[in-house]
């Protein structure tokens, strides 16, 4: 069994008994990267020197004895839109190709105090805009299950690196599905926490009212452990939720008896691949056999969610990305005649076409004369979409459906057609607009490509989401499958 397939508790015990060192874990990570990343292209920057130094320090602590946290020594990958002091953070954009952050994100500091080892920075769609990793301005990440296929996105590098066994776990960010959809495409577990549960401080902002950081892991138990380490109020994030953080791991009881599951008919209707639907129905029957009940429900505004999302997220992006002006950081265009030209040329040379397209859409939606028709309208529809969930959650504990309407698609297949690409997020976007938690867990395969099951919960009820996901996982083998690389 590969080292990273050992359960977290088992790795921990071996470290404590000194049968394993942090140096061994870090070696395993870099040798796997050396063997596989030429074809997967999950990493943008490696932190080999820093990781080796951390390993030496941690192994010293091991020798000295004392209490170890459960994440101690685990090799982690960090999505490249999460700032890491002293380690390049590019957002997969040419604009930030030399950006050397002067501080670390709160989640990075939290992982540091949990004593994980940062292996490197993971590839993504530029500024997290995209669902395939084809919008990385450096190179596209490939799906470990079939390298002709996309890994999903925007956290494609985060998902592919875990699926390929390059790191023990990774962090990603999710704005409209960017953790869940790549987790589904790569056959791993991806959790988007409730908006506000995990600090966004140091996450390069795309759409501030939607962005949320979360873990990508091989199983649900690891997801609970990592969430425990990164959740919590942060005064540096003005939208951080000041709530008590429960114990997530103790929620994993294996018991789902009496859980009431709503299954939105809109998530299994038109546009859903029959094999995806079949896998979701099989999963629901599994829940039934474990003592949960399920019935069809309706989220009637689902069909409006993608349009709502693209107007709101692009509007927020057009405002957030105004900071990239070539004055204080980033790549400045050469020899501008004046300040205005400096802005225009730096931005035009630094941003890729999807980023420009969204800035254009957002600027238009916010511009004089169109604000009410597009932006305000979308904000009102967001209320209706959120109410859909509130209504279902009056009678149900969880909502379950597919994570994505299809398995991964071929690289290049949807590049010329942004609208089709956007529709891949039809099942994840409504959840993001409502700000509620959801996890994607492996629930089958179609033609050798993984399928993800999405389990959606009430705001701040990650415990029930994790409990159901874990119980399902205990009775299936999908998450134990590994790609041949």
């Amino acid at each position, binding site marked *: 069994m590969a080292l990273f397939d050992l359960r977290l508790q088992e790795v921990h015990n071996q470290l404590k008994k000194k049968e394993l060192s942090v140096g061994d874990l870090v070696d395993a990570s870099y040798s796997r990267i050396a063997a596989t990343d030429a074809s997967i292209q999950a990493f943008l920057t490696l932190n080999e020197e820093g990781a080796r130094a951390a390993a030496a320090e941690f192994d010293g602590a091991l020798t000295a004895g004392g209490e170890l946290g459960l994440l101690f020594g685990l090799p982690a990958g960090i999505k490249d839109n999460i700032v890491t002091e002293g380690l390049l953070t590019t957002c997969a954009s040419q604009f930030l190709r030399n950006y050397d952050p002067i501080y670390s994100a709160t989640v990075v500091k939290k992982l540091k105090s949990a004593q994980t080892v940062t292996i490197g920075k993971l590839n993504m769609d530029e500024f997290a805009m995209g669902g395939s990793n084809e919008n990385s301005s450096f190179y596209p990440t490939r799906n470990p299950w079939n390298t002709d296929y996309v890994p999903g996105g925007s956290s494609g590098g985060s998902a592919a690196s875990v699926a390929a066994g390059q790191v023990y776990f990774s962090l990603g960010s999710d704005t409209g599905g960017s953790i869940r959809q790549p987790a589904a495409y790569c056959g791993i577990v991806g959790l988007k926490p409730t908006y506000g549960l995990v600090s966004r401080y140091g996450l390069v902002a795309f759409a501030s009212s939607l962005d949320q950081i979360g873990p990508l892991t091989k199983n649900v138990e690891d997801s609970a452990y990592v969430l425990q380490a990164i959740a919590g109020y942060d005064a540096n994030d003005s*939208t951080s939720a000041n709530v008590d953080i429960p114990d997530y791991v103790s929620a994993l009881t294996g018991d789902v008896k009496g859980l009431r599951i709503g299954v939105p008919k809109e998530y299994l209707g038109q546009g859903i691949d029959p094999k995806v639907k079949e896998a979701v129905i099989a999963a629901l029957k599994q829940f039934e056999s474990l003592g949960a009940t399920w019935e069809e429900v309706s989220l009637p505004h689902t069909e409006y969610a993608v349009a709502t999302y693209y107007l709101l997220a692009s509007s927020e992006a*057009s405002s957030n990305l105004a900071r990239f002006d070539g004055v204080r950081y980033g790549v400045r265009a050469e020899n501008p005649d004046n300040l205005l030209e*400096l802005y225009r040329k730096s*931005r*035009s040379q630094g941003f890729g076409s999807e980023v420009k397209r969204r800035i254009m859409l957002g600027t238009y939606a916010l511009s004089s004369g169109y604000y009410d028709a597009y932006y305000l309208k979308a904000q009102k529809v967001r209320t209706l979409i959120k109410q859909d969930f509130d209504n279902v959650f009056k009678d149900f504990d969880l909502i379950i459906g597919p994570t994505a309407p299809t398995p991964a698609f071929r690289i290049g297949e949807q590049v010329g057609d942004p609208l089709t690409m956007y529709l891949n997020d039809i099942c994840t976007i409504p959840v993001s607009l409502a700000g509620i938690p959801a996890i994607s867990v492996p629930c089958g395969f179609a033609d050798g490509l993984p399928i993800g099951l999405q389990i959606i919960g009430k705001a701040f009820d990650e415990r029930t989401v994790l409990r159901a996901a874990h119980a399902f996982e205990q009775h299936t083998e999908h998450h134990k499958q590994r790609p041949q690389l």
Partner: protein
Amino acid sequence: MSITIKDVEHVANLARLELSEQEKEQFTSQLNAILKYAEKLDELQTDGVEPTSHVLPVHNVTREDVVRESVTNETALRNAPDEEDGQFKVPAVLE
């Protein structure tokens, strides 16, 4: 509502983007397709519906007005494309 190359040029100016002729044409057709899709929202009656800008009931958050540690001048300038005398340098704004 359909947008023209002229609209695209106007919006690009607002967004401080300089687009090539090819980009202008491409964005005109792609933005038209996306906006046409967005018109779907007009099917919904939303009079009296409160807009949601944010899902959490949080309001302006302020901290105590006390001096805290801050980054040094040197650190703040670490990524500056151009600098002079401890300041970010840009082309002259006034002739």
